[in-house]
């Protein structure tokens, strides 16, 4: 029965469509490449989150395809014929939903397995906690199938499938846009509304997990939706009003358990962010393989920073999200280094990168291109060269430094003309400015002369 159904529905095309579209999305967002802070296929949390992100386009496709299947009988005009046969409607509906559901699950599974096999090949880390997102992904695709089948059955019209696909797309995109609204007051859309969406933002941090409240809420809402969709497909027209019950119950339960605000949707992943250390150099458990690379340059950087009176004692991987618009966390006792900032840096340059700004994060977000950003770049660059003990100004390495190159030599010469104690005091003062983000680091280096 199931085999016949698989062959005569569009079910077999679904996994193909899912994989093709998802691969296109991942390529477009550079998820599998090293440029992304949370790559696809290097560790299980990133892989699972990217796969869930691809639902933003996969989910409308799934809903639309299921709607086409759901209206098959009425479009073919066999509804009356079938209702006169002794075989119950529920039985036919069950096999149809089984076929479509199976196809969708296989498609999503193919994606996950492709990613996770790559994780295994790369020797990346698997965390049990990422299973939560796997489950959420599967529940979301099944809810899409049930919703499509149910609506297709209720409204068998040629415009239904495209309209439902468009509405599903509008819902996922709007949910995503509302959660990414970066204004300081937060989004104008209440968080419970966006929490109902199956779309998740592209992962910014591999160290954050869906929280318990969010997970349970989504499970309730999506399983309610699934149950209602299937009931609409199976029960007689007269009992259809009852089919609304599961989705209402699921929605109520979800609204009760959802976190109060959007920040509560994610919790830190303690297993992945546990530290693994080699002397004063520590990386997270997730990036354990990075430790041998970072250890040498990290120790060199700590050594070079000893020149300053207040210097960090440890190098630690930063577990902060990769958001350019936010000011990074800063700590005078630790040199925090994000994994993403070093992915394209050759090992020979790693020490220099760690010493940039005397081991502090930038205060002014990049991509801003203001005179202040240029001044900060030059100050950080001079601190870096001074700490590395170069005799001449170091060559520009990053695009920001190339942009600010004409400002650098006079500052360098002026600093090195001073007595050594004064040099130390000025670099220490500039480091302090970068740690507090108050004042102008370049003015601190040049003694306030600007």
């Amino acid at each position: 029965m199931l085999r016949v159904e698989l062959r005569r529905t569009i079910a077999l095309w679904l996994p193909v469509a899912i994989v093709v579209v998802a691969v296109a999305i991942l390529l477009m967002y550079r998820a599998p490449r090293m440029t992304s802070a949370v790559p696809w296929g290097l560790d299980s949390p990133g892989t699972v989150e990217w796969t869930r992100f691809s639902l933003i386009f996969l989910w409308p496709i799934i809903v639309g395809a299921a709607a086409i299947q759901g209206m098959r009988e009425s479009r073919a005009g066999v509804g009356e014929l079938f209702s006169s046969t002794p075989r119950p409607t529920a039985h036919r509906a069950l096999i149809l939903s089984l076929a479509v559901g199976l196809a969708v699950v296989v498609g999503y599974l193919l994606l996950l397995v492709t990613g996770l096999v790559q994780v295994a090949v790369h020797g990346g880390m698997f965390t049990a906690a990422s299973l939560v997102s796997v489950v959420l992904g599967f529940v979301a695709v099944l809810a899409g199938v049930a919703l499509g089948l149910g609506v297709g059955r209720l409204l068998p019209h040629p415009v239904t499938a495209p309209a439902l696909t468009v509405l599903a797309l509008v819902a996922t995109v709007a949910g995503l846009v509302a959660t990414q609204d970066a204004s300081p007051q937060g989004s104008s859309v209440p968080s419970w509304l966006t929490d109902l969406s199956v779309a998740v933002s592209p992962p910014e941090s591999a160290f954050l997990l869906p929280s318990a409240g969010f997970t349970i809420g989504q499970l309730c809402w999506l399983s309610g939706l699934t149950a209602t969709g299937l009931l609409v497909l199976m029960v007689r027209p007269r009992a259809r009003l009852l089919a609304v019950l599961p989705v209402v119950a699921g929605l109520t339960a979800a609204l009760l358990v959802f976190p109060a605000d959007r920040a509560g949707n994610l919790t830190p992943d303690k297993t992945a962010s546990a530290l693994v250390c080699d002397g004063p150099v520590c990386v997270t458990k997730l990036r354990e393989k990075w430790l041998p690379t970072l250890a040498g340059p990290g120790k060199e950087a700590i050594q070079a920073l000893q020149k300053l009176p207040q210097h960090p004692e440890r190098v630690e991987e930063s577990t902060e999200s990769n958001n350019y618009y936010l000011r990074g966390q800063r700590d005078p006792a630790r040199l925090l280094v994000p994994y993403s900032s070093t992915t394209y840096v050759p090992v020979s340059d790693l020490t220099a990168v760690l010493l940039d700004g005397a081991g502090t994060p930038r205060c002014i977000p990049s991509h801003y291109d203001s005179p202040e950003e240029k001044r900060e770049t030059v100050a950080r660059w001079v601190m870096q060269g001074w700490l590395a003990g170069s005799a001449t100004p170091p060559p520009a390495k990053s695009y920001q430094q190339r942009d600010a190159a004409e400002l650098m030599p006079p500052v360098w010469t002026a600093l090195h003309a001073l007595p050594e104690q004064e040099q130390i005091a000025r670099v220490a003062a500039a480091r302090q400015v970068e740690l507090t983000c108050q004042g102008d680091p370049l003015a601190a280096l040049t003694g306030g002369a600007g």
Partner: protein
Amino acid sequence: MRWLTLYARSRHVPVVVAPLLLSVVLTWWFAEDKWTPFAATLGLGLAVVFAASGLSGQDIDLDRTAGFSWFPRRLAHLLLIGVVAAGVMLAVQEAGDVQVESALIVRDTAGLLGLAGLAAVLFGGQFGWTLPLGWTMLGLGTPDEPETLNRVFTWLRLPADDALSWWLAGVLFVLGAGGYAMAGARR
């Protein structure tokens, strides 16, 4: 006149008009001052999507027994979709302060019509909406980058002086509209 009414009904023309108009007007309404090629692509894409959901009649075999040539009729149907979609688009945006270039709208309409025709030939008339919607989604979701693959995906919202986008739209139109006019929707 009677033939035209029956034809329009069998192609779901009356039911398709409302979603077509709504998608353009609503997109324009929501975009407000952000009426860019991005928003215009979305509105136009959706308009063609709805209009293209009736590219075949109830019974294709019966259609083919007709004593006249379907070629000009199918072509006219497809072109009419384009004229209406682009026309509504151009008319609606006149009401706002910002306008998207007319050349861009013409190019996008041609390409989307081609995709609709292609989908009808490949998958059947009731699936004419799939390819236009798919490429609109792809084009809007792909990040803006100068790489060729990104430009191919986002041709719908590239500036009107971009040669690659015109080539793509042209090829799609010739293939899709020509294929549909000659072969008709898949059985």
